[in-house]
C-alpha cells in the first residue's frame, strides 16, 4: 500500500478480520462495506447493525462561560439544554455570512461541561474556528482523540447491546431519544452512551477509551449485531432525510435553503449568534430556494449535482445527494429547488430529462416508508 498516511481507527484489525472492503474516507482507512451494502442497510432497518465512527471528532468544552460561548457559536439555542445534563441538541455552526461551517451535536454533560461531536472531514477548520471564537471567555477546548465511538442502530439493537455490554452501559435502557448518559465518569471504564444516530432507527452511539474499542466491537458482534460500512450509513441517512455536510450544505449555502430552518432559533432576540444578521436579511429579502426530497419516477439513479428543472421558473435547482433506496427500491435524493416548485420536477440525467416527485422529507423512519 502506498497510502501510508491513512489514519486508522482502533477497530481496524477487527474490520480486516470481518472481511471489510476498506477505502480512503477523508484520510481515514474505513470500511465501505463487508460484502453487500444493501444487505447491511436492511440489517439496520430490520434488526441490528453497527458502525465504526471513531473518525468523528469529539471535543469537550469546559468552563463557566461555556453556555455564553455556545449561545454565540451555534444557530440553535444552547439554552434548551443548558444545565440539563444528559440532553442533546443538533445545530449548525455558522460563519458571519450565515454559511454553514459544520453541523454537530452537543451534549450537556455537567454544568460548565458540554461535549461536541463534529464531522471528521471538517475537523481542522472546525477546531480553528471554535478556538478563534473563544476570545477572552472562560472556556477550555479539549479535543478527545483518546476516545473511540461505535454507533449501534436498528429496532433490536438496544436489547442486544444491553445483553452484550451488561453493566458497562448500566442505565442506558432508560434513556429517552436524544438523551445521553455518562457511566463510571473519570474511571478507566468510562462509557458515554447517547440515544442518537444517523440512520432513522433507534439505537445508541457509545463512546469509550480507544484501548477498549476493539473489545467492545467484538462483544457487540458476538451478540449478533452485524458490522455495517459507511456505504449503508449513507443510504440510511438519505432515507431518513438527514443532511450530510459538504453535500447538502456548506459555507456557501444558507441553512434556511438547506432544510435546516428548524435548527435555527431566532426566538431569543437578544441572542446575537454568528450569522444571525445575514440570515435575517435573507428572510427579509425572501428565500429563492427550498430543500426537498425527490423520488425518481422513471428508471435511473439520482446523484449529487444533477440539474433540476421546474416548470415556470427561470432558476435551476440542483441535487445535493442522491442514491438508490434499498427500502423503497427506487432512486431518491435531496435537492435545492426554486421555491415555487411543487409536486413534479425534471432531473437532467445524462442526455435525458426524467420526472421526479417532490416530497417533504424524510422518506423512511423506524422501518416505515412515509411517502407514497
Amino acid at each position, binding site marked *: 500500500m502506498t497510502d501510508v498516511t491513512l489514519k486508522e481507527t482502533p477497530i481496524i484489525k477487527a474490520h480486516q478480520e470481518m472481511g471489510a472492503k476498506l477505502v480512503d474516507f477523508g484520510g481515514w482507512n474505513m470500511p465501505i462495506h463487508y460484502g453487500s451494502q444493501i444487505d447491511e442497510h436492511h440489517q439496520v432497518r430490520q434488526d441490528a447493525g453497527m458502525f465504526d465512527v471513531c473518525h468523528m471528532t469529539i471535543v469537550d468544552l469546559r468552563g463557566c462561560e461555556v453556555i455564553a460561548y455556545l449561545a454565540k457559536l451555534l444557530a440553535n439555542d444552547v439554552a434548551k439544554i443548558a444545565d440539563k445534563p444528559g440532553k442533546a441538541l443538533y445545530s449548525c455552526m455558522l460563519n458571519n455570512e450565515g454559511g454553514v461551517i459544520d453541523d454537530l451535536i452537543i451534549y450537556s454533560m455537567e454544568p460548565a461541561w458540554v461535549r461536541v461531536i463534529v464531522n471528521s472531514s471538517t475537523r481542522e477548520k472546525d477546531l480553528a474556528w471554535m478556538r478563534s471564537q473563544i476570545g477572552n471567555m472562560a472556556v477550555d477546548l479539549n479535543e478527545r482523540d483518546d476516545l473511540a465511538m461505535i454507533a449501534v442502530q436498528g429496532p433490536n439493537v438496544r436489547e442486544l447491546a444491553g445483553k452484550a455490554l451488561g453493566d458497562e452501559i448500566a442505565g442506558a435502557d432508560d434513556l429517552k431519544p436524544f438523551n445521553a448518559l455518562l457511566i463510571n465518569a473519570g474511571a478507566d471504564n468510562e462509557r458515554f452512551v447517547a440515544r442518537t444516530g444517523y440512520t432513522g432507527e433507534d439505537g445508541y452511539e457509545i463512546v469509550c477509551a480507544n484501548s477498549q474499542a476493539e473489545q467492545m466491537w467484538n462483544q457487540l458482534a458476538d451478540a449478533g449485531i452485524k458490522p455495517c460500512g459507511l456505504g449503508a450509513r449513507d443510504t440510511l441517512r438519505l432515507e431518513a432525510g438527514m443532511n450530510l455536510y459538504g453535500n447538502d450544505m456548506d459555507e456557501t449555502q444558507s441553512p434556511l435553503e438547506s432544510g435546516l430552518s428548524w435548527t435555527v432559533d431566532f426566538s431569543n432576540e437578544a441572542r446575537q449568534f454568528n450569522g444571525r444578521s445575514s440570515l435575517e436579511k435573507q428572510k427579509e429579502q425572501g428565500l429563492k430556494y427550498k430543500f426537498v426530497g425527490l423520488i425518481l419516477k422513471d428508471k435511473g*439513479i439520482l446523484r449529487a449535482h444533477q440539474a433540476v428543472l421546474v416548470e415556470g421558473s427561470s432558476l435551476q435547482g440542483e441535487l445535493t445527494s442522491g442514491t438508490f433506496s434499498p427500502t423503497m427500491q427506487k432512486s431518491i435524493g435531496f435537492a435545492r429547488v426554486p421555491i415555487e416548485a411543487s409536486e413534479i420536477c425534471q432531473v437532467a440525467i445524462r442526455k435525458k430529462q426524467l420526472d421526479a416527485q417532490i416530497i417533504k422529507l424524510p422518506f423512511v423512519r423506524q422501518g416505515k416508508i412515509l411517502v407514497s
Partner: protein
Amino acid sequence: MSDIPQELKYTKSHEWVRLEDDGSLTVGITEHAQGLLGDMVFVELPDIGDEFEAEQDCAVVESVKAASDIYCPVEGEVIAVNEELEDAPEQINVNAYHEGWLFRIKPLKEDDLGGLMSPEDYAELVESESH
C-alpha cells in the same frame, strides 16, 4: 486475486470481451470491476443497431455508490443486449462473466482484437491498481 478467465480478452477500462463462434463479441465488466463498484442497481444499455467507435462510451452501470461508463471495446454495431439486467442488475454482482453480460457487438473489421489485453496483462493492471 480476482477471477480472470483465460479464454477472454480485456480492456484497460475493465470490460471483458468474449469472441463468439459467429465472430461477434460479447462484452461485460470484470469481476474486479464489479467488486469495486459494489451492489448494482441500474443499467443503461445501448439500443440494438447502435454503432460505436472503439473506446466510445456506449452504456452505463450504476451501483448504489456510483455511476460508471462502459466503453465499446472495438468499432462495431450492437446486435444484442442483456435485457434481463433491467430488472435484475445484481446479476452483474452474482456472475459478471455469464449472466452479467451487457451487450454483443458485430465488429466492423474482422480480427480487430489486437488492441485488447491478454488475461496476463489485465492481471498485471489489476495488481498495479491495487497498490
